[in-house]
């Protein structure tokens, strides 16, 4: 399978000397649902900004479906749809005009653009707002407007920078469903997100970036296997005052009083239930904690910070 995005040795040094990207390599296969994760200032937005021509690179190669942005920028851009982190449309223009104008920039005549705009505005629940100036929309609607705008020219690669930031849970779930459908239909999707639960739920492959370097670039499955630890959330019949001590298992209470038990690879769950039974604690339901990726992410970023400090101290 060919690659939707190939990045080689990408470096970015800003005018003030800050090295945001330190020669990163990255590839995203066609049809993938890919997450680029990292803490604030790690280099996620800079990377995507270079791919989308919003940031000038210092060195390195970027190819979108084989089109080099240095030599075939126009072809590369035709394959790209971009949903930025910040609202970046004219707040005074009407929803329909914003979407059709964007199509016009891709050379799509108004008649054809209107059909495409109607399709995506309907899919994203904005058709009823088509004549509303963008400034009158709610935050969630503005996010959906940016998605409709990014899709109006039917790109093969959709890049979303924090697409669900500030969006309520219900809307976030509906946006996930929409993006999954787009991906099933063949659109390659790359997203950055602070909600690691989102990456865990949607993405097949993940790269973790920190301080301008790629720390990990692998499948979500392989990444989660490295965790070697799974957290189970147990709801008990009676509320617990404190987390019970269960031998080798690490336990704690979550914010809502449910019992969280960490189970390492090779440990059986039976022992947990035997001990809880002996204590007279009745479990009424159990689920795995969804944000396993978050734990792994935090570990990697902390380890990277520790390594960086050691290197600095070593050099000194």
């Amino acid at each position, binding site marked *: 399978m060919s690659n939707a995005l190939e990045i080689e040795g990408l470096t970015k040094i800003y005018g003030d000397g800050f090295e945001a990207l330190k020669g990163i390599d990255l590839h995203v296969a066609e049809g993938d649902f890919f997450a680029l994760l990292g803490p604030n200032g790690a280099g996620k937005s800079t990377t995507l900004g270079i791919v989308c021509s919003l*940031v*000038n690179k210092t060195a390195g190669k970027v190819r979108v479906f084989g089109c080099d942005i240095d030599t075939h920028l126009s072809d590369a851009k035709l394959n790209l749809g971009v949903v930025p982190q910040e609202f*970046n449309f004219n707040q005074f223009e009407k929803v329909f005009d914003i979407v059709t104008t964007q199509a*016009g*920039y*891709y*050379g*799509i*005549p108004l008649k054809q653009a209107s059909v495409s705009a109607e399709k995506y505005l309907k899919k994203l629940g904005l058709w009823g707002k088509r004549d509303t100036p963008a400034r009158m929309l709610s935050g969630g609607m503005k996010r959906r407007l940016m998605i409709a705008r990014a899709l109006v020219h039917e790109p093969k690669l959709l890049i979303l920078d924090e697409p669900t930031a500030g969006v309520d849970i219900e809307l976030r779930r509906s946006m996930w469903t929409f993006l999954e459908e787009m991906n099933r239909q063949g659109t390659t999707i790359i997203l950055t997100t602070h909600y690691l639960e989102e990456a865990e739920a949607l993405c097949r492959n993940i790269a973790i970036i920190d301080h301008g370097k790629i720390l990990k670039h692998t499948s979500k499955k392989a990444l989660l296997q490295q965790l070697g630890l799974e957290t189970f959330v147990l709801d008990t019949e009676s509320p617990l005052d404190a987390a019970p001590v269960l031998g080798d298992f690490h336990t704690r209470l979550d914010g809502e009083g449910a019992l969280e038990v960490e189970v390492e690879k090779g440990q059986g769950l039976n022992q947990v239930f035997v001990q809880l039974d002996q204590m007279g604690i009745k479990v009424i339901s159990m689920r795995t904690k969804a944000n396993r990726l978050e734990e792994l992410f935090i570990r990697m970023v902390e380890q990277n910070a520790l390594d960086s400090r050691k290197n600095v101290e070593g050099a000194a």
Partner: protein
Amino acid sequence: MTPQALFTAFGTIVIREVRRFTRIWPQTLLPPAVTMTLYFIIFGNLIGSRIGQMGGFDYMSFIVPGLIMMAVITSSYANVVSSFFSMKFQRSIEELLVSPVPNWIILAGYVTGGMARGLGIGLIVTLLSLAFTQLSIHNPPMMILTVFLTSALFALGGFINAMLATKFDDISIVPTFILTPLTYLGGVFYSIDLLPGFWQGVSLINPILYMVNGFRYGILGVSDVNPFISLGMILVFITVLAVIALKMLERGKGIRH
């Protein structure tokens, strides 16, 4: 992009620009009409009637071409500088930057948008002037060419100003401290024959003098300078500013990090 796609992209930018200035017509179309009407009444009728003839014409007829040109210059400039800077400020310029529209189409689209407003205002002011004086056009091709090229030139100037501007103050400095004085001293209200020799020489380094006089020649057939030199100068300025604007777009000056 195919030539047809490029034309669609160009048309999209122009239509968006026209939609913008017509949507806010009380800010864009009405003020110059009101201001120029006041100029016609005060300078043309009230004061002009006591001045007598200038350049062989009554004062009202003399200032009409200059006032039309003044309106065209300020409107062409203002449209592009405010529209493009607003796009930078709101970051909606990113809509264009991520798209495959080439830089020369972006520039051509904005300049044409600025010209649409400048020439539209020029037409409004011309129609208003007919209420005060009769216009007989001496050389229509020269008049049309001069006003079109001048409008394009100042739209380009507005584009460069917007690229360089980092705050709203920056888009009013050039119009207030450079454009307005040069326009007022560019022979809109007087013939430079009235000035002492030294100041005539100084006036000749003001580029707006050539544009006003080229346009005046087109309408009245009189000019302080050779109208063909005027046209040549405008073309040179257009070429220089277009090259600068394209270079700035290529480097992403003020729009790409």
